[in-house]
Structures are given as structure tokens and as C-alpha cells.
């Protein structure tokens, strides 16, 4: 597996180290000359000094044989342009972009960059998860946001407690993917029974959110 990482800030630096440790072939591209000495010593030939959006640098890094390109600079325009060129011009099979301003998520998706990492959004989701017990927490958007993996926590008063899964009137286009009970991960079957505080991971189309709320909370 060959991964190109653009941006040698904290995220890119640690990501490069982790991937190398896992046996990936890695190229780390960073344009800050101040980091050259340290990165050359640490990553040797895996480090390239330059702008990761420069097509010549990308070619020098061997973008044509890369399996994945990950753009994690602190600038949305750099991450967007690097990923778009990799995906559409150099035909890299997979790209991952870091999104700095959550409002920019839309344009990434519009350009076909499906996998984005957005720290602000993730932290906001975690806070929501703690604060709003009776909410459906979106964990991951797939297919440009048409499908989502959501999490529901079964409250003490939920009508589904004691019910087996097969009696649950789930809306269409909705799959119970997993049930988390304490440390246990349970694959839900027809006879699996819901307990209070079960966390349920559901793969669903976005239209179902209201119906799911009714089912588990009313």
C-alpha cells in the first residue's frame, strides 16, 4: 500500500509515523523549509519538500502508483485542490481530505471527495451525544450524505425495551448494523432483545430520522 500525505503539521506527521509503522510505503509532502532538516532525518526518502498541490511534486512523489492520497494541511483550498487533482487527474483510487471550516464540506462532496475528516464536526457530534440523550447522533455520512450511520441510545423509558428485534417496525431502507451493550458488540438477530442504555448503530437513509425517533423514544 502506497500512501501520499500532504501537510506535515501535527496530523500529517503522526499519520506518516503510524502508517510507516503499519508497513505502508509513505510519502510526506510539506512545504515549510524550517521542517526540512528534521523531516529529512526522520523520514529520509519518504519526505519531499514542496507544495503538495504542485503537479510536478505530486508526479515526483509517484502519484500515479499511489493507492491513497491524504490531504491534511491547515488550508481548505490546498486540501481540496490536492484531492481533486489526485482523484480526477491522476486517478488515485482513494482520497481523504481534512476539512477545516465545516461550511466547506459541501464543496468537497460536490467535487466527489467523499471521505472527509472534520475535527470541528466530530467534536460537535461528541458533545451532542453527551448533551442530547434523546437524539439520533449522525456518525458518518455515506454516498454524499444520502445514507448515514447513526447511533441511538435506548432510554430507560423506551417502548422497545424487552422487545425482540423482529417485532420492531423499522422503516424501509434501514438496517440495524450493531448493538453495543457495555463492552459487548452484538450483531442484532431476530431474537435479540433491547435493554436500556443499549447503543444501536443503524445504517439508514436520511428520510427515516423522524420515524426512528418515534420508534425508540415515544
Amino acid at each position: 500500500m502506497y500512501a501520499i500525505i500532504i501537510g506535515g503539521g501535527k496530523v500529517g506527521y503522526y499519520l506518516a509515523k503510524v502508517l510507516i509503522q503499519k508497513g505502508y510505503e509513505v510519502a510526506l509532502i510539506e512545504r515549510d523549509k524550517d521542517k526540512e532538516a528534521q523531516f529529512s532525518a526522520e523520514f529520509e526518502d519518504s519526505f519531499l519538500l514542496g507544495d503538495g498541490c504542485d503537479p510536478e511534486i505530486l508526479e515526483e512523489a509517484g502519484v500515479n502508483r499511489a493507492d491513497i492520497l491524504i490531504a491534511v494541511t491547515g488550508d481548505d483550498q490546498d486540501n481540496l485542490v490536492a484531492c481533486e487533482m489526485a482523484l480526477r487527474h491522476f486517478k488515485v483510487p482513494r482520497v481523504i481530505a481534512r476539512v477545516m471550516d465545516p461550511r466547506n464540506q459541501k464543496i468537497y462532496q460536490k467535487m466527489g471527495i467523499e471521505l472527509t475528516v472534520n475535527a470541528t464536526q466530530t467534536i460537535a457530534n461528541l458533545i451532542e451525544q453527551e448533551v442530547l440523550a434523546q437524539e439520533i447522533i449522525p456518525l458518518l455520512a455515506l454516498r454524499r450524505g444520502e445514507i448515514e450511520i447513526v447511533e441511538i441510545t435506548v432510554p430507560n423509558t423506551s417502548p422497545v425495551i424487552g422487545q425482540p428485534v423482529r417485532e420492531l417496525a423499522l422503516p424501509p431502507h434501514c438496517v440495524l448494523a450493531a448493538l453495543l451493550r457495555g463492552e459487548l458488540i452484538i450483531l442484532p438477530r431476530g431474537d435479540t432483545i433491547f435493554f436500556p442504555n443499549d447503543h444501536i448503530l443503524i445504517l439508514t437513509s436520511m428520510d427515516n430520522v423522524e420515524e426512528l425517533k418515534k420508534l425508540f423514544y415515544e
Partner: protein
Amino acid sequence: MKVIIFGCGRLGAFLAQALSQKGEEVAVIDRDPRAFRLLGSHFQGKTVVGTGVDEDVLREAGIEQSDAFAAVTNGDKINIMSSLIAQEIYRVPNVIARIADPKMEEIYRELGLKTLCPTRLSSEMILHLLNNGQ
């Protein structure tokens, strides 16, 4: 015609003045309010402080009703990103991105952006002048 120009450097300011003199409705975006001095005191158009990749700024400049959008800052990537937003999200009919790096310009032209590469244009012009001088 309603035109938005992102980037009030020499090119952006000159273009804005030219369009405004022709009677077009022009809005200029730049993150540095001092840049608008280049427009001169007779400029009739609108100025908006901010960046052309911020949708609130773009809407304030009137992107929803605009006929054309030109991103002419000296940053290639920010020009590309703002042009993509104008073209793909706001469906502005005529979008032009200034890209100084000729290789990047070629790639984005193939990917469907209307691009303008000052480097390529100037060098072609200079070559032409050199040939004619001989």
C-alpha cells in the same frame, strides 16, 4: 450584467474599473479593505471585505443573482476553490479562474474550469514579439 471579482490586486482593480465604466454592475471582494484604494475614487461598484471561499461573503456580493464570477487573486488554489463554489454550488453561468501555474492551469482546464494563465499568456506574447522582431 452582474459581475463578481474576487481579488482586488492590479488585475482585479483594473478589470473592475473597466467593467464599471462600461456600465456593468460590479462587486469586488478582497480580504484587505486597503486593497480597494486601487479602484480609485470614481468606482461605482460594490466592495465586500472577506474571502471568496466564504459563502456568506459571496452571498453578500450577490452571487445568487450574478452572471459572471472572476477569481483573480494571486493565490492559485484559493482562485480554484472559489471558482468551484461559484460554478458547482451557485451555478454562476460564466466563471473564470486565474491560475499562474501553467501545469495546474492545464489540469483544471481539462477538468472543466474556464481558466486564465497569465504566465502562459505573457510568455506566448513575448515569444510572438521576439519572432516578429527578427
